[in-house]
């Protein structure tokens, strides 16, 4: 187990992730059948220190930067999209929690620096009542990726008052306060175990929340206790990178698989498929799409980091551009995998095909509301022309 005193370089985390790829790929089919990744895989992530990459140093984390998270995801995703997704979701809440009121941080990590957090989206029958000093939540929250391993869940709460700007909050709830509902049956990212949680008339005090108003760049409620640059980042403006990293990883994995597959395949004329220029062009275009996506994400991460370190606050336009780029990267990876999947013939429609899994997984990634292209594109256009933006998560 790593402790805060270990000084682990970023390349080491990436190497650990790369080394896990064959194992993750081997386990992917079973994980799909189980609708969750195994405890062993989770434990391997714990031991590699992956979940602590964005956790404050003060509380036992490594407090690194966004690009290392992207690069680790770009490796893990090659082996198994669902495993990568679990990593990306959990690691992100090291950051969210580090931005929160120190009381919330201490509740999570004070006694247990290994505590993990997931998040969940409001379902149709979820109810939020804003009361003095907090919120009361009741009903079902869905898509709770990582709930099998989490000690806490951050409920996504939206407040859209008639007379003010829309707000989003992450409100953390301890696992003793919710019940997990086993309802995760999907075609893509099937092994993420993203079940629902149910709460009953539960009061959550304000200090356990992180409001979108407080994380637009610059000081956050947690940044006095955690003075590092990380906890002053424009969280939503830059933050959906955690969904783009898996897209890059899954697409890279699909490219590996197709290239491996081609070695054995012949066209109708009996020639090796890899000698076909039409095949080469598909590989080249998908490869370049993936690399441009990856470069774009990491450049934005670096830009946001440098800007934050200089004490600059990004404008709405800047934040909307980062989010647009993030969604663009995911869309480009989807196109890359679609094109590659077409090369794999009917075999890639069979349920035990790894290429089939990558194809389903990446479409599931692109369905995450934080990276959906249409929304990000529209937010960008509205920011560019000073039209009102109703999405609190920019």
């Amino acid at each position, binding site marked *: 187990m790593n402790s805060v005193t270990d000084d682990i370089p970023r390349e080491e985390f990436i190497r650990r992730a790369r080394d896990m790829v064959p194992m993750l790929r081997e386990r992917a089919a079973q994980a799909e059948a189980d609708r969750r990744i195994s405890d062993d895989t989770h434990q391997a992530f714990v031991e590699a220190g992956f979940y602590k990459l964005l956790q404050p140093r003060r509380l036992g984390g490594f407090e690194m930067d966004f690009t290392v998270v992207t690069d680790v995801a770009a490796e893990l995703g090659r082996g198994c999209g669902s495993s990568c997704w679990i990593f990306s979701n959990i690691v992100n809440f090291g950051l969210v929690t580090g931005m929160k009121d120190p009381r919330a941080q201490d509740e999570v990590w004070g006694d247990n620096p290994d505590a993990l957090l997931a998040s969940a989206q409001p379902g149709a029958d979820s109810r939020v009542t804003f009361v003095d000093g907090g919120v009361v939540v009741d009903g079902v929250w869905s898509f709770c990726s990582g709930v099998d391993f989490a000690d806490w869940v951050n409920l996504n709460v939206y407040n859209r008052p008639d007379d003010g700007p829309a707000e989003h909050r992450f409100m953390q709830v301890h696992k003793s306060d919710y019940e997990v509902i086993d309802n995760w049956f999907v075609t893509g990212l099937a092994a993420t175990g993203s079940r629902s949680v149910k709460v009953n008339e539960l009061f959550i005090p304000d200090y356990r929340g992180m409001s979108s108003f407080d994380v637009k760049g610059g000081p956050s409620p947690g940044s006095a206790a955690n003075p590092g640059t990380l906890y002053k980042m424009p969280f939503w403006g830059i933050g959906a990178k955690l969904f783009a990293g898996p897209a890059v990883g899954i697409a890279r994995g699909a490219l590996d698989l197709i290239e491996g597959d081609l070695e054995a395949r012949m066209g109708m004329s009996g020639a090796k498929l890899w000698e076909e220029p039409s095949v080469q062009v598909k*590989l080249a275009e998908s490869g370049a799409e993936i690399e*441009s996506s990856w470069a*774009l994400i990491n450049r934005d991460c670096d830009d946001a980091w440098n800007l934050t370190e200089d004490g600059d606050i990004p404008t709405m336009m800047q934040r909307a551009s980062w989010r647009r*780029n993030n969604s663009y990267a995911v869309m480009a990876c989807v196109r890359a995998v679609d094109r590659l999947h077409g090369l794999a013939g009917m075999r890639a429609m069979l349920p035990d095909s790894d290429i089939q899994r990558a194809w389903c997984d990446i479409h599931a990634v692109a369905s995450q509301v934080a990276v959906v292209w249409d929304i990000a594109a529209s937010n960008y256009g509205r920011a*560019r022309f000073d039209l009102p933006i109703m999405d609190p998560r920019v």
Partner: protein
Amino acid sequence: MTNPSREELLDRARQLAPLLRERASEAEDNRGISRDTHERFCEAGFYKILQPVRYGGFETDVGLVVDLAVELGRGCGSSAWVFTNLAMHGLTMGMKDPRCQEEVWGGNQDALICSASPAGDSNVTIVDGGLVVDGQWHYSSAVDFADYVHLQIFLRPEDGPPEHRFALVAKADYEIIDDWYSTGMSATGSRSIEMKDVFVPDYRMLSSLNIRGGPTPGSEVNPGVLYKLPFWGLGSKWFAGPAIGLALGALELIEQDLESRIGMGGAKLWAEPTVHGRLAESGGEIEAAWAMLARDCTDVMRMTGAGEDPTLLIRAKWRRNNAYAAVLCTRAVDRLFDLTGMRGMQPGHAVQRAWRDVHAVGRQLGIAWDPQAVNYGRARFDLPFNDPRV
């Protein structure tokens, strides 16, 4: 006098962009950028960024060529193209035999070199100690401002690997033929030149076999990282930079244009979600292209600095990425150009110029998608490889 910083050079380019945009139409009419624009590039020091320090150059990095081309290209694609073509030959010259460098820069550190591609009636004869060239070479961008031309020579011997050479000829050795009439990149003045049985000694040539990463004929006298770069393998970044600039310029112009336009329903066009979708996708494409080129430039400088020789697969990948950047920029401009309506078809429309120009960029053989995509595939599967420029 200290050399200008990277930021200072970029700033100079940014300040020039509006002027370039203003002059773009007239430059097209003249089929070449003005001498005044060229002189401003000289004064700004743009052509010296890859020239060896030994001869008064700045010896910066290849990434700066891309970034400067982006800024200049926002104003005028042809101007950016002239810049990149002349600037890149500071690099090829610095890789050459020191005798050739001395001939070019010994008496005049401001001497400039451009290049030209073989035409149908160009003849190359291999003789003792060099080559004899005869006939026409085409597409010599910026030839009006150059003191020398690097003729591109392709040798495809039956008993060895194909080879490419840059063969240097002085302007006293060729005649310029005023034959540049093009729909895209029309102000680059990329005329042809004609020679009559000119002998080019070996030391005035730079062979593709000697510039695949690591020591080059010139790197002993110019020990900086630049002159050990895998020249062709790093990808012809000097062609992709202007494409990004053009596309960014088109995006800026469209966004301004939209402020005054009204759709059929009477609503402002800039409030239309379909318009937002186009702007966003083109913007994402352009930034992705730029980020990828910048990353590849950083990688190639780092690898070369560390003494690592890139494999054929890596070089083919860099070239593929470069060509893909141009594909992305072309798609971006195509999508934006549709937004200009019929007005965009009128003569002198700046977005239309960017549209014509970006399509011309994609036709440059060094950046054309199909050959680079196939090169990548052939490198990936160890198939025989016949393109010497990778």
